[in-house]
């Protein structure tokens, strides 16, 4: 079973700076099959959306192969501030 902690751990391999924001929400109601992942990082500045998702998909490939559904929000720090409260 995949947990919020598993996902956070893998995301922190790349998003480890103090400024990086990571929010992982289990939307499965406890069975661990559906997650929402929001990341805010300056590493996304100037990177296309497809490429941002590829970066995260690669970090989470182990988890993604085990779960049913995942929603990714890959934001710059500015976008994160603007959008995180609208989730």
């Amino acid at each position, binding site marked *: 079973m995949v947990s919020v902690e598993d996902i956070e751990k893998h995301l922190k391999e790349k998003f480890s700076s103090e400024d990086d924001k990571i929010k992982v929400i289990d939307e499965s109601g406890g069975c661990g099959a559906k997650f929402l992942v929001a990341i805010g990082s300056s590493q996304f500045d100037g990177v296309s959306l*497809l490429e941002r*998702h590829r970066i995260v998909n690669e970090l989470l490939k182990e988890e993604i192969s085990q779960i049913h*559904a995942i929603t990714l929000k890959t934001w710059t720090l500015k976008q994160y501030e603007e959008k995180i409260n609208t989730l």
Partner: protein
Amino acid sequence: MNNFLFRVGTKTTGFLRSSQFIRSYGVKQDRKLEEIRKQLNDNPCVLYMKGTPERPECGFSNTAVRILEAEGAVYASFNVLKDENLREAIKVFGDWPTIPQLYVQGELVGGADVLMSLYKSGELTEILNNAKVLAKKEE
């Protein structure tokens, strides 16, 4: 090639895990990848999805269909639930782990989340328009 087989072998689950199946999988997958190339060659806009546009069988695939409808796009679709080999091959082909996947002129545009963002920003209209896959507006 070994690397490729290993990756496929570790990703498969359940009944796919028989060693015989994995041995034959490389060949089968090569054939599938070739089939995908042909599908993308024949159709400028292609959605790989779960279910059909008339009856999507997953919320994310439904989102993709609704977006393409709203855009007025003309597209071909393939149901990966009807073809387990296609379901695995398209993930390898697009280097993308999830379904749906939208391709325009042979290029992966994105999955449901990416499509929704591109739709909201207007970029998707531009991509579809440039590829000339938007239906002509009624007079």
